[in-house]
């Protein structure tokens, strides 16, 4: 099973992953058009203090609490990926509260937003993995 592996040793805190993520999930072909003067809506976030930084995104847990807690069945596991059905999400944010990693985030689109490993974004690898300049985010077999 392929999962995103983050290595804080190589994370530079440059935040490019956030921008590539937001761009990949915007559905817009041009990065400038997608992100210029917009509030950034990435599905992963850099956690950072002065000494250390690393990207946090959905761990796609084997037994995810968010899926269990979802009151409408909007969150489900498909091929080992925790997915969100935007049409079913009612925005109760229970998943946001229960996720121990803070990887499910509220959004202003109504439904919550979370990493779905760029499935459906037409790329072989997730945008954060491709966009990381220092291989701090990798897609690895676990």
């Amino acid at each position, binding site marked *: 099973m392929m999962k995103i592996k983050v290595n804080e*040793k*190589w994370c*530079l*805190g*440059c*935040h*490019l992953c956030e*921008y*590539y993520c937001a*761009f990949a999930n915007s559905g817009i072909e041009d*990065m*400038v058009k997608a*992100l*210029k003067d917009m509030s950034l809506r990435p599905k992963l976030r850099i956690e950072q203090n002065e000494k250390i930084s690393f990207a946090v995104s959905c761990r796609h847990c084997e037994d995810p609490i968010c899926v269990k807690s979802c009151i409408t069945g909007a969150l489900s596991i498909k091929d080992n990926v925790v997915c969100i059905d935007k049409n079913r999400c009612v925005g109760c944010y229970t998943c946001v509260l229960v996720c121990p990693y803070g990887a499910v985030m509220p959004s202003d689109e109504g439904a919550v937003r979370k990493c779905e490993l760029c499935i459906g974004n037409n790329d072989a690898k997730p945008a954060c993995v491709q*966009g990381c*300049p*220092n*291989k*701090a985010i990798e897609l690895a077999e676990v």
Partner: protein
Amino acid sequence: MPINYIFPQFEILRDETRCIKCRVCENQCANQVHRYDNDYRIMIADESKCVNCHRCVALCPTKALRIIKNPHSFRENGNWTADIITDIYKQASSAGVLLSSMGNPMNYPVYWDNMLINASQVTNPSIDPLREPMETRTYLGQKKHTIKRDHKGNIVPNLGPQLELSTPIMFSAMSYGSLSYNAHESLARASKSLGILYNTGEGGLHEDFYQYGSNTIVQVASGRFGVHIDYLNTGAAVEIKMGQGAKPGIGGHLPGAKITEDVSKTRMIPVGTDAISPAPHHDIYSIEDLNQLVMSLKHATDFKKPVIVKIAAVHNVAAIASGIARSGADIIAIDGFRGGTGAAPVRIRDNVGIPIELALASVDTRLRNEGIRDSVSLVVGGSIRCSSDVVKAIALGADAVYIATAALLALGCHLCRTCYSGKCNWGIATQREDLVKRLNPEVGYQRLVNLITAWTHEIKEMMGGMGINSIEALKGNRFMLRGIGLNQKELDILGIRHAGE
């Protein structure tokens, strides 16, 4: 404000229609050129700090940045150029020696670019390296003039220690201290993976890298930093550094700021002290003295490791090399005046030494004439930029080449020539932790492997074109070279004919 005589060298062009204010440029610039202005909500730049290293340009996700030469100009003057005027202003304010990094950037002739390689047509077949075997394996070390046999006629092996290279390219000396830990790890891992060697430079060998010993040349320089018995015996060969192409005749100075805990331990000097390499080895004032050091190192390593003597290419290089060949050294490394450095006085870098092409040709010729060419292998460096430079160097008489600037370029270096500042944005020539981590050795080593693999492919293609199937047959084969645009004196020194001859 006092008068500022020096205007910024570069101009940063930011395409506002493309900038998404992600602030990558800001967080990646160790020189603090870029910053976000909260009031105007735009990115602004202080160009006076820019060194044109391209870190911001390379990482900008929307390609909104360009750095150009500042078109601001002094009144044109063929004699008093902008560089000369600026240098005078700098020295008038600082009273200091001007420093710069990397190799001689002056517009002297590049002889590689005035030599052409031969190819087979009709009368001798060319070889397709993809279909037929092509040998790039090279052995460095003394070769014997005579074969010894026992009373039964069997050959008695009498060959001294040899270095085996899968391809005739090695990574030249760059010390830990001048380079980062991650840059060294990249070089060490790439060498192991490629079956070639890298060189520790004069800063000792970090304990983590002893595992790459069989792919390591350990250097002994005038400062003797980090030299101890385990160090000498860990390497595949020991190199005595007498000189460096970028700064012949002078020593080195690694500022105390770069002597971190780890560097201090490796170099065996206190944290924060300047590491000063004297200009000469204080125990070497003659070939006889050099012989003593060569023999000391051979004894220390039980005669199992070849000893390399590295010199800068200077005016009397052929005579000096002849002396070294008689000093017991196994390999002579010659570094041309374009060779790189972490820091050198500008006037020395730009005005001292000679081109490696001429030095190589004259040394090879002299050693052949004296009948001692086989006593040593010749390794040349000092701006080998591409695979055709390698082929030309070998055809001129080199056994292998040293590359360093090209290797750093592969690791991300953009030749901004400010290594001495210690703020390398690419994590190469720095000891600042936040900058060092920018070079992930996993990425770095692969890029080095890619570079050497590509060059080796090209070398094979060029050899195949000449109808040559092994490096041995190309070595010193100057008939394979022709000069173009060179005068008779230059052709004579290079020992080649003019194109069309």
